[in-house]
């Protein structure tokens, strides 16, 4: 076979492979949306799930997912921000930095089941928090920390050194430079990173099965006192999220319309995650425009 023929064949094969990959994604999205969207209704999105009969909704699970996401973000963002500031602005090359970077890398590659089981062992069993939103949020924090730290660190590293030098030249301390110059400049890309990681956290299930639990007790949406047991804001109640719900009804197989419910729930999950992904860059760009008057 001559070289030109081989070149043509190889090019064809590469086109075909890329086409197949694109088809796989389109087919999956189409499948989920076509199967799921017809099940969506106001009733489905707001009513509680039913275990043994058809017609249940995903209202509580949907609320739990968002509530857990917000709590996890509130806990993990300051920690990730601090860690990223230290790594990018203060740390010098050395043993300590190498160890820390290795630790972050290892944490980011740990299977999320293991992170969930660790949360189960420490918070659910040792600290007697039980299956609760709090345990789940902490487990999600562990899962989220390495990626968020890395993305914030990248955002900070993108700010040119000129800015830091200008800060020093004005007599600002390093901390003041970071707070007043570097962080504001990095806000757009930090926000992009945060929204992207929110998408990942929203769909996570394996870390939550044994921390936030697999049950969704009835909530009283008129009661916003976080200390009442039926209040949606109570962080000590067990809270099954949307992703966990999909897993549970499929592996239990006792809900008669499990298929329709999981198709609808998957569609909601996908739509929310897509919204997060699509909006992440837009929000970042918009912020950049607003903040820099560019």
């Amino acid at each position, binding site marked *: 076979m001559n070289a030109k023929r081989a070149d043509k064949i190889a090019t064809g094969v590469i086109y075909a492979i*890329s086409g*197949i990959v694109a088809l796989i*994604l389109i087919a999956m999205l189409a499948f989920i949306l076509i199967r799921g969207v017809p099940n969506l209704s106001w009733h489905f999105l707001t009513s509680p799930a039913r275990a043994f009969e058809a017609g249940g909704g995903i209202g509580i699970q949907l609320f739990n997912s968002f509530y857990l996401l917000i709590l996890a973000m509130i806990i993990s963002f300051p920690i990730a921000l601090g860690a990223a500031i230290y790594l990018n602005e203060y740390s010098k090359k050395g043993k300590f930095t190498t160890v820390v970077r290795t630790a972050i890398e290892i944490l980011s590659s740990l299977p999320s*089941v293991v992170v969930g089981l660790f949360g189960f062992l420490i918070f659910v069993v040792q600290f007697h928090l039980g299956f609760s939103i709090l345990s789940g949020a902490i487990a999600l924090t562990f899962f989220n920390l390495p990626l968020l730290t890395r993305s914030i660190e990248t955002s900070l590293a993108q700010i040119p050194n000129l800015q830091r030098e200008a800060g020093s030249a004005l007599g600002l301390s390093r*901390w003041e430079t970071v*707070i007043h110059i570097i962080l504001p400049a990095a806000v757009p890309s930090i926000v992009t990173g945060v929204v992207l990681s929110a998408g990942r956290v929203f769909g996570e*299930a394996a870390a939550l099965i044994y921390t936030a639990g697999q049950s969704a007790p009835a909530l009283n949406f008129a009661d916003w006192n976080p200390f009442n047991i039926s209040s949606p804001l109570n962080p000590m109640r067990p809270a099954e999220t949307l992703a966990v719900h999909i897993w549970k009804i499929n592996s239990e197989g006792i809900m008669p319309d499990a298929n329709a419910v999981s198709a609808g729930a*998957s569609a909601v999950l996908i739509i929310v995650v897509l919204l997060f992904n699509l909006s992440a860059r837009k929000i970042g760009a918009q912020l950049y425009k607003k903040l820099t008057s560019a």
Partner: protein
Amino acid sequence: MDNITQKLMQKSESTKKDSLGRAVSLAALSLIVIVVISIFAFVMSRGLSTFFHDGVHVKDFLFGSTWNPSVVNPQTKQPYIGALPMIFGSFLVTFLAAIVATPFAIGTSLFMTEIAQKRGTKIMQPIIELLVGIPSVVYGFIGLTVVVPFIRSVFGGSGFGILSGTIVLFVMVLPTITSMTVDTLKSVPRHYRESALAIGATRWQMIYKVVLRAATPGILTAIVFGMARAFGEALAVQMVIGNAALMPHNLTSPASTLTSILTMGIGNTVMGSLQNDVLWTLAMILLLMSLVFNLVVRAIGRRGEMK
């Protein structure tokens, strides 16, 4: 005079703030390190108690092929705790998924970097990002409603098994391997390509003999990362593999992985019992394997740097 000396000798307000800020951010960083250390410490201590506290032999655990921890073998007076089926299942789906995904990943990334740079990044980049963003339970659900019935109708049997697990994992690791391969290919210097083309190589010769060779360490790293993701993936695999702790006879018979037995079992056992301890040992194996994957990536990176 004294006043001025004092003022000069004292730390200024902003120096104090700086030290405080530095300390707080260092604390945040240390917290992450502490979390990593305690994950290892706690999971290892629970996992090892199978061997130290319950007196199970490591050999029986790793190479025994019967898993039924709640039943005691009348001959040896030991429960059936052979974890080989799960270990084997995990490795098998991981390797199969990586083998299937690699050509697709390399093809797609070549399309994006060598064949059609503009269209490649415009069309394929969002596709890869969307594939990364789909939650794993959704992959599991699609596997359960599409892949499993398909396998059942083609190969017979229940449809649950290694093959279904491989197909689901293939799609899940594809974006991981692809995006990392794209980065590697992009880092191959332009003049390598130009030199190859200048001496009369066709595009494919240039790709095959120059670009791919130069990018080999990076592509291997990408594959190992993909395998690490496949090995640790829990729910999607658990939904389609059948969860029978048996050595798989063929690719379509129900099997299990470390993660699938772990997610099924940990809630149904009592903390501190042998049945529970052996599950923690499975978790420990998962933990150690992710460490191994990390070390392999590092080793490849060092090799690649040397030349």
